[in-house]
């Protein structure tokens, strides 16, 4: 019997780069580094990759944990093909298949003022047609112009992202004038200029819920880009859940010579003279490296990981404190023993709410006595029919809560609170869709901010990085990036990094962090 195996090292003594966390950001970073033939070690505390981008099994069902739809994938070929597809397929040969989501969203508003039951399609023209026929008083021309503005902002954002902080303002002024004009304003400020009737806005705004901010606080450029990309490129999901996509990326990293290790928590990022010199794992093993890409938030990195702690400048804490932590999520996952048809579930994604007032919706997320106003439901079978056994359905209902809202929940009140909220959400959806959900629940699981904290270790259970207010927008973040680097060799990836949250941004930010490290290595003649 040998117990010696646990004493010698599992790791090389040093690596070009150590990536902390195998969420989408960490995976994206490690993939690009492995592709560039750097020695890379990816350390993940959990026993599988993905972070929030994962799945779990109950009985006969495998549930998608977080994904509703992925942006920036686009069709397999042609001008609308998106960067995610390019990076995963063309650049990195990752074995992942994408399935299109059938419609943009099915909106159901149940309030007295404006009752709505409309399915909004992809494609700008189709989308506009549907809005105009559902709300005939919509000024069509303005809506066409609005989408054109969104396109320009989206293209400008890509241009800014590519210029890595050295933006060529001449090109920006010449090609993306409206982007400059609208930059720094909120979605509401710009959109209101178009004078759309409130009913039109009701149909237009649902996607903004994915950003976790009301229109008055959400940076317009980001909103415009999101709307444009979804409506033009469509939305996709990976075949076989996000876990399958993450397992594919993990497999490819290993194939390319990278090392990925699970059940390995990084306890400290070791620094000396404001420079990264290595990391230390939970059991005290030290690994040398000059570059660390971290998938965990600046809150955790500066608050808990940097060692010695007194190496962290006050400026770093202040910066963290000046920013706003995004929302956390609440999801009811159900495996139902009836077909989607028997359950009256004809669409893939539903937004259901009494109203579409984004201010009111956001306010309703700042308490947890009762469910917030808006839910987003996904019937996975309507994109992937065989995702569950014949005659069954996978349905999830999601809502969000402000980051501090669950802080007074105790273990004693926890189970009752979550079941009460889940029951209200199931009732809301049942009623809106005339669907006998509760008579068919074979499996049910409810994830709360506590659940997300438990599995990913995310700070306060947040799932959404820092809020994308106009003063903390992608453009501003990319302009100030260099000034906010407190340690040489430390880069951030994932939802808390400059590009913000979401599957596509997290993956892309990982790649961006890797490119940045590669560039620095080259500059140092490494």
């Amino acid at each position, binding site marked *: *019997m*040998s*117990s010696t*195996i646990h004493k010698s090292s*599992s*790791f*090389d003594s040093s690596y070009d780069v150590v990536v902390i966390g195998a969420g989408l950001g960490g995976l994206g970073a490690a993939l690009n580094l492995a592709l560039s033939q750097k020695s890379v070690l990816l350390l993940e505390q959990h*026993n599988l990759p993905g972070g929030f981008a994962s799945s779990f*099994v109950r009985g006969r069902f495998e549930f998608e944990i977080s994904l509703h739809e992925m942006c920036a994938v686009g069709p397999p070929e042609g001008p609308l093909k998106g960067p995610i597809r390019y990076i995963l397929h063309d650049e990195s040969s990752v074995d992942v298949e994408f399935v299109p989501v059938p419609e943009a969203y099915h909106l159901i508003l149940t309030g007295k003022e404006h009752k709505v039951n409309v399915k909004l399609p992809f494609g700008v023209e189709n989308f506009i047609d549907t809005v105009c026929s559902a709300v005939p008083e919509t000024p069509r021309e303005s809506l066409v*112009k609005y989408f054109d503005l969104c396109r320009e902002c989206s293209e400008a954002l890509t241009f800014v992202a590519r210029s890595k902080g050295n933006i060529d303002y001449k090109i920006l*002024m010449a090609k993306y*004038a409206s982007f*400059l*004009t609208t*930059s*720094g304003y909120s979605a509401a400020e710009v959109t209101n*200029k178009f004078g759309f009737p409130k009913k039109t806005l009701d149909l237009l705004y649902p996607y903004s819920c994915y950003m976790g901010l009301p229109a008055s606080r959400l940076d317009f450029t980001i909103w415009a880009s999101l709307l444009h990309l979804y409506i033009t490129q469509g939305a996709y999901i990976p075949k*076989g*859940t996000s876990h*399958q996509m993450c*397992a594919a990326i993990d*497999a490819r990293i290993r194939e390319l010579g990278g*090392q990925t*290790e*699970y*059940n390995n*928590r990084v306890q400290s990022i070791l620094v000396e003279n404001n420079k990264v010199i290595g990391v230390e794992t939970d*059991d005290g093993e030290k690994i040398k490296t000059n570059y660390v890409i971290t998938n965990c938030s600046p*809150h955790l990195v500066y608050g808990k990981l940097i060692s010695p702690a007194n190496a*962290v400048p006050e400026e770093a*804490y*202040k*910066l*963290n*404190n000046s920013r706003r932590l995004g929302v956390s999520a609440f999801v009811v996952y159900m495996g139902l*023993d009836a077909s989607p048809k028997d359950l009256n579930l004809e669409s893939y994604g539903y937004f259901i709410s009494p109203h579409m007032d984004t201010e009111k919706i956001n306010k309703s997320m700042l308490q947890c006595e009762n469910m917030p106003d808006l839910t987003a439901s996904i019937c996975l079978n309507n994109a992937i029919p065989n995702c569950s056994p014949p005659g069954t359905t996978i349905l999830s209902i999601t809502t969000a809560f402000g980051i501090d809202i*669950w*802080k*007074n*929940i*105790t*273990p*004693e009140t*926890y189970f009752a609170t979550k*079941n009460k909220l889940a*029951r209200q959400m199931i009732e809301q959806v049942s009623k809106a869709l005339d669907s006998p959900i509760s008579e068919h*629940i*074979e*499996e*049910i699981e409810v994830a709360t*901010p*506590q659940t997300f*904290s438990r599995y990913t*270790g995310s700070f*306060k*259970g947040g799932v959404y990085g820092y809020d994308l207010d106009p*003063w903390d*927008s992608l453009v*501003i973040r990319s302009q*100030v990036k260099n000034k906010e680097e407190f340690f040489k060799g430390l880069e951030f990836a994932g939802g808390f990094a400059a590009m913000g949250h979401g599957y596509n941004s997290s993956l892309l930010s990982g790649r961006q962090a890797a490119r940045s490290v590669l560039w620095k290595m080259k500059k140092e003649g490494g």
Partner: protein
Amino acid sequence: MEVYGRSKDMAQASKMQRERKKRWKNASPVPDIEDPIKELSMGLHLKNFQLIITDILDATKTTKTYRLKLAPNFELKRLPLFRAGQYLSVKVNVDGVKVTRPYSISSAPSDILEDGFYELTIKIKDDGFLSTEFFEKWKTGNIVSVSGPHGNMYFDDLRDSNEIVGIAGGSGITPFRSIIREIVAQKLDLKLTVLYGSRHEDDIIFAEELSNLAGKLPDKIKVVNICSEPSENWSGPSGFINAELIKKYAGPIEGKTFFICGPQAMYEFLEKEIQNLNIPNRRIRRELYGQPDNITMNPKYPVEFKDKTFNIIVRIGNKIETIKASATESVLVSLERAGIGVDSQCRSGECGFCRSLLISGDIFVNNEIDGRRAGDKKFGFFHPCSSYLLSDLEIKIPSFKFVKFSPIK
């Protein structure tokens, strides 16, 4: 801003940049590290914590109930709460062999709130590697390492009927004792009928206690003991629990939820009986039974392999080690025997905690419960606790270094 007039001054963008600077400058320099959500999480489950045995109650000639409280010096306010029916994964080190075992918590969540304890009721199996150890060596004052609570066999008012029929066999009574105590403590509003199968009368665990508790709330709790090999003095029902007995004691099936917990043999027998009763899938919850006593009893097991032994090349990070393994033991058990170990919880293939990479070789997966994710099947991951060797293997297992084991001396 003038969208159509196209003023290009970016005034607002610059203003926002100043705004960001201002917020930065005026922000508090105190690191924000308090995390109430993490604290909540620690009040509900933990990866590794230590308990102390404060009492040992003899339940029957082959079972003991251990009362466990938080070990002194452990930084926790209180034991993690749970839902009646869940289990703990106990981590033990027997002479260098580190193993885990799942045990349902036989006490109720309300016992934590009132007296701060869990109880585990452990039955010795004649050939049980560990239960013998427990029986002989666990003493009052010993420290026990556990993780949890885990598990999915609990009452959920969103899914289950509040009329529950429990079917228990042997030590499978433990989660029902927890539920019953919780009903008596008025924390669960359920009607519960338990059909409890034992071999002899003196094998019935908690006979007196459960009958007393049921007597307190006769409208809500009913416990029917059924003996398969009773003595002459036995006046209750006898035989195996079958469809007829279920109908007789539980009444109409319609609208009730069934919870089943017992040894593997009981599940196999009940499977057909349950089919006869036409209970919909969603009305049946089965607790896992851990690793099967004998994999060759699985009709799908390729018996020609049963006497074979193989080699496993085991990688942990950069480390490599080769071990011998017998075909009829799960890969997890072989690893544990070799002193390597992988952390595990359910040991039934379901929870995915032992997820490892199969680099090469063939395995037989105990197909009763294959809790693997589709992506894991595709990319060569397997659950060692429910996998058996059909050839030499090369595998990569996650490191297992943070778990503390309670040594059994």
